[in-house]
């Protein structure tokens, strides 16, 4: 910086104009950024600090917070409802997200090979991603999977539980598969991203592999999949973070209870119950921090392992 100033000092006028312009840039930068800056400190950074502090207190919104040390965190490990919420959420994340991505990729590959009509299909398949999280669809899902409903009848025909016993909605062992089906049904968004990635795979490469005698399976696993790995990584990250935060459908289908028999007591639903029904703000804050740390760790792990399986264009490995 000082070197530049010293050398620039020889011809006075342009230098003065440059510093004037720089000062103007700094001022304009902060003026333009000010709404976001206020929002960031008031709505994100400040609340994050507050939430961390709260997690070490008991606070019911009506009397002053009282510090309790790590009590909220140690209590998590003995809270049967919390452990249930962790279990249900992990099952949902571990089975739902990959299944959704497999379907999304399969359909994307199918559409990528077609000429006529693929634009129509692509748009139509995307629709559930747009409406799937809404209360309307949760209600439809509830009606479709309830006592004596279509799906329950078909399910019991194929050896599932009897349709009269409350259907999938009333059966604690079927609510999770039901919600996983709901998320898989919304495969359209990752599919569109996969399709964009598939367009980047150079056809010359596939053609020359084909001339060399590589079959479709080999071409897919050796060329398409590695070239698609950055997109796969992106989709996986987004989908995992997304699944950890399932709330609407579980809330509507169980009427906010997490039932039957706590089978839809997802992490965020339990956090909502603790924070906004029981007003245990400190305990709920501790839950939120554990969630943040877990999502952070999952993200970190994905990034760490990505060197092994994500191939960015141009690097020879």
């Amino acid at each position, binding site marked *: 910086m000082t070197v530049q100033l010293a050398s620039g000092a020889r011809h006075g006028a342009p230098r003065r104009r440059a510093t004037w312009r720089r000062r103007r840039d700094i001022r304009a930068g902060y003026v333009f950024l000010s709404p976001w800056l206020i929002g960031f400190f008031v709505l994100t950074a*400040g609340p994050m600090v507050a939430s961390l502090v709260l997690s070490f207190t008991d606070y019911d919104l009506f009397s002053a917070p009282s510090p309790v040390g790590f009590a909220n965190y140690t209590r998590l490990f003995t809270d049967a409802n919390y452990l249930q919420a962790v279990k249900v959420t992990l099952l949902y994340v571990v089975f739902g997200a990959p299944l959704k991505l497999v379907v999304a990729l399969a359909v994307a590959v199918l559409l990528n090979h077609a000429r006529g009509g693929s634009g129509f299909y692509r748009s139509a398949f995307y629709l559930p991603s*747009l409406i799937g999280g*809404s209360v309307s669809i949760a209600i439809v899902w509830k*009606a479709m999977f*309830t006592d004596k409903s279509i799906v329950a009848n078909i399910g019991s025909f194929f050896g599932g539980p009897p349709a009269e016993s409350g259907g999938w909605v009333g059966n604690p062992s079927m609510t999770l598969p039901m919600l996983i089906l709901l998320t898989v049904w919304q495969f359209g968004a990752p599919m569109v991203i996969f399709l964009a990635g598939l367009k980047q795979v150079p056809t010359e490469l596939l053609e020359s592999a084909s001339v060399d005698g590589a079959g479709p399976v080999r071409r897919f696993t050796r060329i398409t999949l590695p070239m698609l790995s950055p997109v796969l990584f992106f989709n996986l990250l987004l989908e995992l973070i997304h699944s950890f935060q399932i709330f609407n459908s579980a809330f509507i289908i169980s009427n906010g209870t997490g039932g039957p028999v706590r089978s839809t007591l997802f992490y965020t639903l339990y956090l909502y119950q603790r*924070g906004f029904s029981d007003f245990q703000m400190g305990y709920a804050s501790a839950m939120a921090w554990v969630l943040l740390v877990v999502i952070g760790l999952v993200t970190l792990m994905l990034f760490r392992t990505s060197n092994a399986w994500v191939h960015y264009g141009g690097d020879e490995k």
Partner: protein
Amino acid sequence: MTTNAVRESATAAVTGGGAGPGRSRARARRRTRSVIFHVFSVAVLVVILYPALWMLMSSFKPSNQIVGSVNLIPRHGSFDNYAHALQGIGGVSFWTFLANSLGLAVLSVVGVTLSCSVTAYAFSRIRFPGRGVFFACMIATLLLPFHIVVIPQYIMFNQLGMINTWWPLLLGKFLGADAFFVFLMVQFMRGLPSELDEAARMDGAGHARIFWSVILPLMRPALVTSAIFAFIWSWNDFFGPLLYLKTPTSYTMPLALRLYVDQTSSSDYGAQMAMAILAILPVVLFFLAFQRHLVRGVATQGLKG
């Protein structure tokens, strides 16, 4: 498909370039492939659209014919369910819920497009110290689960006496808190040539003028995509209104729908379906009108539904 052409010409070369059996076999194979493609796609389409269609058709059926019926076509179709739904719930008119949802969604669109475009301009077109750090902060908020901030935010809005007002639901929109849109616009602005700013600056324009007269008009595609998503997300939002809106007269459509399900008990499926259709209709209409925009926006920015 091009691989087929290569294989075809390869076989043609081997067999002596004849147009005969080799080529027609390839054409037949291409046709079977196309048939397989359409069969699969239509099968997926049926699975995808069946719940939506079932919901639509059920809204015209009497309640006792909905659950357990695989039939899509109602035997005695009527608009009774809609008439019932339009009466509202608990003495509150349907139009009140609609007006609440519309007002919030429109203001969200205004807030998001204004605040995020200004923020994106600062990040992508102006050089100032601290830009890199704040940009990293903005990207980090993309991955942040909002549960980490929701409890202190609730306490803050509660102490400010803003529960049951629109402030908690709109403040973030006007302060660029939706990092997705900021990111989308930054990416778009980076694609615009810097010669534009230089030329405007030569003509004596300041940043406000460059932003307003040069960049913003070129941003139309990114602004439209953001506006559509901002509308739909606000319209479908359930958690925010659930936390902050407490009296039925302030309810949005998703809250009203939930109230409807609670009050009418599980037996009146017909009215529930009609209400569900009405609650989702604007989103579907937006989708039909802007599907190209929406799908392209997802493909380039990885937005979620």
